[in-house]
């Protein structure tokens, strides 16, 4: 729009008049033959849809269709092996939303997501800032940093479980060597089990956050920082008032993607605690898994998944607004 306006202002005179003539002629022709003009408009309007159709088809197939099936399944009774299901209205939702265990699991999942993503964001930023300047040593450090990110979550969960074993695990051994309390029953107490679970998540996913923030830092313009330095800003002031606001969109990306990933966490909890001790680490996905893939109660599982879908869909815009509020208003 800006570019178009500029062109108009620089091409006053004959050129603009010449441009207008065919347009006026076309308008007059359209008045004379409204049917033909409408066909042309329709044809022009359909082109973007035609061009977008492959992407729309993929989107329809990958997201809309499963979501529609999910809604349909959530309103029906029945199990995987009982195709004679019937319409039960909101019964499955009532069952799910009045289950105290589900509400407990949702709260636990929310707490896990908030704590894990917050820690990862802070640590990711602490890692990204020194590694953002491109040098050979930084490139090597960045590569090493990414290693935990490359390990399959199920494998890392199994390894961490062995490392934390109070009878023969390395962690217990080296804590003893360092004079720290040994034979800590990490996964037997709710507090330490959470430390272990959040610790693994932080170890695994902080590199992902750092990677996004490093990319952001490397793409920031130098001019504002140079201007701040000329104005006498300290390093901290430059970071706090110049770098961090400019980094807000990247923080928003990191928070949003990690929140979605963290809500989906399953392997680490299934392998390491199974929701225990008691039900203290019973995140919502463990319940969905048992209902959907062990009891195959498809209606109830679909209702639970729908609740999660709605919560997540509501959460994402809120996150974007909250984290990105310091970004350029024109870009929000």
């Amino acid at each position: 729009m800006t570019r178009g306006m500029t062109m108009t202002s620089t091409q006053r005179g004959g050129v603009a008049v010449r441009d207008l003539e065919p347009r006026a002629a076309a308008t007059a022709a359209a008045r004379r033959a409204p049917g033909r003009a409408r066909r042309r408009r329709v044809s022009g309007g359909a082109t973007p849809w035609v061009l977008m159709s492959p992407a729309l088809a993929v989107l329809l197939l990958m997201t809309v269709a499963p979501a529609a099936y999910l809604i349909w399944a959530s309103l029906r009774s029945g199990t995987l092996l009982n195709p004679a299901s019937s319409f039960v209205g909101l019964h499955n939702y009532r069952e799910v939303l009045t289950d105290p265990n589900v509400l407990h699991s949702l709260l636990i999942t929310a707490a896990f997501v908030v704590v894990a993503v917050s820690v990862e964001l802070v640590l990711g930023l602490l890692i990204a800032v020194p590694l953002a300047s491109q040098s050979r040593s930084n490139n090597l450090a960045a590569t090493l940093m990414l290693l935990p990110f490359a390990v399959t979550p199920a494998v890392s969960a199994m390894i961490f479980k062995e490392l934390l074993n109070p009878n023969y695990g390395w962690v217990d051994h080296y804590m003893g060597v360092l004079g720290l309390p040994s034979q800590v029953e990490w996964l037997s107490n709710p507090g330490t089990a959470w430390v272990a679970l959040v610790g693994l998540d932080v170890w695994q996913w902080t590199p992902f956050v750092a990677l996004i923030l490093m990319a952001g830092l490397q793409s920031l313009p130098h001019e504002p920082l140079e201007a701040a330095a000329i104005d006498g800003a300290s390093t901290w002031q430059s970071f706090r008032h110049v770098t961090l606001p400019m980094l807000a969109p990247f923080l928003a990306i990191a928070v949003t993607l990690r929140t979605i990933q963290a809500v989906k966490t399953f392997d680490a909890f299934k392998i390491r605690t199974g929701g225990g001790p008691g039900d203290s680490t019973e995140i919502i996905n463990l319940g969905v898994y048992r209902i959907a893939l062990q009891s195959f109660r498809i209606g109830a599982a679909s209702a639970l998944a729908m609740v999660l879908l709605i919560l997540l869909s509501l959460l994402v815009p809120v996150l974007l607004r909250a984290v990105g509020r310091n970004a350029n208003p024109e870009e929000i």
Partner: protein
Amino acid sequence: MAPHLGSLRRLVKPLGGLGAAALVMTAVACTPGTDESGSGGVGEAAAKPVRLRMLYATAEADATAVQSLKPAFKQRFGFDLEIDTQPYDALQQKVFSEFASNSSYYDIVIVDTPWAPALASQLEPLSTYVDNAALNDVAKADIADFVPKVFYDTAVYDAKHPAKHFPDSSAAPQTSAITGKGFEIYGLPIQANALVMAYRKDMFGNAGEKAGYQQATGKPLTVPKTWDDFTSVAQYFTRPEKKLYGTTVMAGVGDWATDDFKSLLAGWGGDGHLIGDDQSITFDSPEGVAALQYYQDLINKHKVVPPGSTSASWDEAASLFDSGTTAMTANYHTLKLDSKVKGEIGYAPVPTGKAQGPHFGTWMLSLNKNSKNKAWAYRAMTWLTAAEQQVAMTKLQLHPTRTSVYQRITTGSASDPATRNFYQVLGESLAVGVGRARLTNYTEVSNAIAKAVNKAASGRTSPKQALDEAAAEVTRLLKDAGYKVPGS
């Protein structure tokens, strides 16, 4: 410059949906297709297939042992047996999705007992096959030879009322008696796992230990046969300063904690099935509270288990015993001491209280209702589960399901004394063992009970409170699954 946040939001909104859609995938069912069963090669004169396909469990039902029979199978049948194996969780999902889509790909499918109530209507009833001599020409089904409890608990169901157990589980199985009571045969058992106690034979036989125990308790050191003796022996061997403990428990949240509890419950005279055939809650009885109190005391009062036991599964329990950390354990399979641990293992039934009822869980080979090679698949099942093949597979640790096999492998000299000892104890345990409640959502119910056992085991809740909470939770789960719970 910074990316456009408005565009970003438009990008991420559907991503939020995608994130949840990944969870959704867990709920997406397979739409049943058309029935392709037709005649399914059911006649005894049906032509030989090019191959048979079998879906099997990787570890829990000893796939290595069954795979070792493939050359002999080819020689006997003249065609191949293809065996696809999957780990437990993936296997369950694969089995259910195969049946949900009416697939005829696998002719034979292995079925674990917790799955059978939901699957019974999808499996081919076998009583007419068993009674047809022409279909038993390769190997006889000889169902009377199966350990009765194992056979009835694993393979005999009333498809209309899959929660019901066969009323007389001690009689030698006969098709007429089974069908006469409205039940059917839905498979042939191939692997029977039971909770068996293992102990350090070298420690129990050590003269110094014997004298020490005599001095400490005034009784001779023997392998405990009662739970009281078990506590006493476990206390004696517990030496935390030497990283040695009396026994293990499997008190982490999982099916194993439920198995530990149901074995104790049966020992205390309660119903080891946990839930009655009419879905009455039976595990929160006074016997249940007493059994769980014993479990809690073992861990918190007597402190005879290693640290971390309240997060341990059967796997950790085995590792602890194998590494020489405990003098006794209870598990589902044979154990092997680490090479650095010099010692010997003995096996014995889990101790007795007022009664005895170690947990057992079994696997059966079932015929896919949609198979196009039913006659030959049935013949393959009879051959794979025949006594001769089961004896051969015990060399690779198969847990047999036939009485005659236990007699042969525990009396002959074909195996080493430790192996004979294990199979003798396994056979005895299966004869008195208690299986699971027959519920379509057994896993959910078992998990609710396991959480209660875990809470009590860690001392955070009293046994009574834990079981009361579990009873309420199980009642709700049963109702959600469509059951009517008496008294609720």
